[in-house]
């Protein structure tokens, strides 16, 4: 059936008035769809990060900062410059850690309970909805211009370690990732895109 002309007009109006209309009028999941579609269009990105970890076994929080590099769809790199240089590269499911002289290679597939957590930022940047939904219940709120996404583990084993991940962002830029662990430990990472 050919859509009536007024429907087309409404669609155009919705597009021009921005994400708020989509999130509310498109029904549940539509906002997430738009976000992930937008994310998937991005092929490369670099951003500064600063992270604070609150661990119960430590007397004070661990602070670190550095650079995040992303290449669609399977490569994510975290280069920490302070307090000491180290790098972590996630590439096609293989995590390579370089701490000082020591190099450690891990396969996400060897750690099925923890893999979704480590893979979550990559998955959102890649717009990989299948990977996200395999492991998490997704709860999108806000507008495309200013959104919040909450990830809660589906799997009981993952839930034993991880309570939830809260992400915030603007358009295709992720601005903050908070990881809340089940034992009360948590971390906050703030991200500033480089343009």
């Amino acid at each position, binding site marked *: 059936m050919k859509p009536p002309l007024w429907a087309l007009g409404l669609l155009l109006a919705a597009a021009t008035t921005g994400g708020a209309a989509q999130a509310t009028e498109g029904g549940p999941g539509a906002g997430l769809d738009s976000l992930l579609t937008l994310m998937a269009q991005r092929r490369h990105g670099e951003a500064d990060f600063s992270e604070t970890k609150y*661990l119960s*076994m430590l007397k004070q929080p661990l602070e670190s900062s550095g650079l995040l590099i992303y290449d669609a769809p399977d490569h994510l790199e975290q280069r920490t410059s302070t307090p*000491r240089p180290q790098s972590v590269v996630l590439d096609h499911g293989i995590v390579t850690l370089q701490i000082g002289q020591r190099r450690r290679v891990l396969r996400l597939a060897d750690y099925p309970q923890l893999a979704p957590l480590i893979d979550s930022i990559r998955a959102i940047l890649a717009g990989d909805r299948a990977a996200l939904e395999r492991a998490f219940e997704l709860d999108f709120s806000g507008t495309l211009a200013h959104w919040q996404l909450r990830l809660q583990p589906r799997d009981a084993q993952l839930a034993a370690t991880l309570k939830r991940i809260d992400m915030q962002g603007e358009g295709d830029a992720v601005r903050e990732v908070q990881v809340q*662990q089940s034992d009360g*430990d948590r971390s906050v990472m703030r991200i500033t895109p480089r343009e």
Partner: protein
Amino acid sequence: MTRTRLASLSLWLALLGLSGLVVARARYSADLSAFLPRSPSATQQLLVQQLRDGLASRLILIGIEGADGATRAQVSHALAVNLRARPEFVSLSNGEAASQERDREFIFQHRYELSAAVTPERFSVDGLRAAIADNLEFMASPAGLLAKSLFVSDPTGETLQVMDEFQGAAQPRRDHGVWSSGDGARALLIAQTRAVGSDTDAQAQALALIRAAFAASLRELDTATAATPGATGPLHLLLSGPALFSVEARATIEHEALRLSLLSTTLIVTLLLLVYRSLPTLLFGLLPVASGALVGVAAVALGFGVVHGITLGFGVTLIGESVDYSIYLFVQSRLGRAAARGDAAVRSLWRTIGLGVLTSVCGFASLLPSSFPGLAQLGLYSISGLIAAAAVTRFVLPQLLPVGLRVADLTPLGAAAARLIARVRLPAAASAAAGLALLCALVLLHGRERLWNRDLSALSPVSPAAQALDANMRADLGAPDIGTLVVVNADSEQAALQLSEAVGGRLDALIGAGVIAGYDSTARFLPSQATQSARLASLPAEAPLGARLSAAAAGLALRPEALQPFLQQAAAARLAAPLNRADLDGTSFALAADALLWHRDGTWHALLPLRAAAGADNIDLVRVRAALATLAPGQVLVMNINQELDALYASYLTEAVHLSLAGLGAIVLLLLIALRSPARAARVIAPLLLAVLAVGAGFALAGTRLTILHLIGMLLIVAVGSNYALFFDRRAADSDRAALPLTLASLLIANACTVIGFGVLAFARVPVLSALGATVAPGTLLALLFAALLAPRSVLAPA
């Protein structure tokens, strides 16, 4: 019935009965030991042990192709579950996480026994601070959650330390949770059979089980996806490994041997029926062949205790020569009964056949001293079989032939052949032969560097495509290949482990120097008791450890009270009994321990397979040997199995060539003595040598490199051809021209049988069979042709 007749018949029957008894009770072997020296060195002994029942011989590589990755993973899982439940398999690995977790749990439980980093210094205040600071950094990394769960129990990171040590080996790629090929197109599994690799029947059964399990998982899959039939696309099963090769090789050889021997038997029987025009005559003619074969096998069983399959296989070629005797007898004397009467012509015939048998015996006797049982057995089999066949033809057959048995008169055939040969003038034939000999010699001289194939794989019945698939799957899986090994021999398990640790220390230095990429050792996951005790003794008691931890934590942001589990577990480990072999059960280390550490006849052997440095095909054995030279001399060996095997094969090829030349010398000597004339001896030998030269040059021109089977074929050319040449010499000597056409006719028929028998073999797909066929068929034909053409024309002219 005369007394002599009775005597010879009863002797024959008694011989057959005894031989039958020996043959029925003999032990037969189909393993590689036929190719191994009779008094092997320690290295060679280990070699055959590894090939026959080493780990590599028990691995079956399985590939699943087709459909998509998720479906392949599903089938891989179903296959693994199905086969793990079968007692025929010791293990089945497909990379699934469950087995990895068991291994990780084992490492965690025994981290203080296993970690090489555990020293008294590590548990001093400074050591603790350094180790904990290191691990805190790891915890702060994005992958830190992996370490965090461990940290409270293991703040010094021993578990990770051990995992790092074990990680040296290249791991297969994973796709949808299971191992896959590098390109992701094939799911991969490794099955280890309970049966050793040399147990071909058990291996065949294991392969059948894998195929059945695959078919079952496909049916399950079809039921599961019944809603969308065909959505997954077809799936294929790929199998590889020594078990598959030996099962398939056996099937091929059996199939080929059956098909080809049926074909050649049919052809030969048809030909002989046409010649004899009598079924009884044909059957009588086969009596010497059967007797010879039976006596031959019995002689080998008595002489060696065990009969190799290869002897039976190639010894059957004996038929090629022994069937000739009855042909000569029937055709030349028109009927064998004349032989019993003992007239002059018949006695002369028997002198010739007897000399022919002796010549063959000389040729095959040269194989007897060979240090390789396969060749020595072939020699004994041929000698005893030929003598028995000739004796049965001479003394038994004439007694058995019923009165009135007739064969067709072949005088016209022989006369026609004689006229044809007589058309060629002898000087022309002689110069042509000399020219041909020169030409062949030049061809052989030119190609002498590439004449012999010294590579054992030349005898392998495995197709190059199958070998390539195997190499491919092996590379993807990092499955143990039989490559370069360090072998440690010791009096006890503990001594073997301690020596392995010492070797490991030297090998670590070689890794640092880039000589090797890595190595596997049982001592990694099962350190010697001494090493374990030393490590556990490094752990302080709970109270002092707690004090040191508090002191160490002062310099860090750490709350020491969070590490209570560490204090308790370290204290418990300190008092624990050291790890032993039984503790490995249920982990993948048990499989590795079985493969890498075993004892036999009171000696413990530990293997440390080496991995070549990245980008290097080979390991520099000289440097490895030099690095290990000062360790327990005589107890540590470094070897490359493929090199050892090829060297072994090359050495026995060389030995066989030398022995054959010695055999040729013996034949020349025999003929000189028997014929009492250098000229006559030369005339007998010349056509044989020419035939061998021509066949050798033919192979050189065709680019076929000669193997041991070609050499045995050449011996057969001389053995069979000498009969032909001697007949022409007999004609020269006795000048009984009336018998000439019959002599020629019998030689033609005998040669036709040989050419048919071996010619059919030349078309076999099994290299060893085709090599033999392609050598003997043209060789004997040429030997007859040359012998006829070089015979004095005076004897060729019919009366």
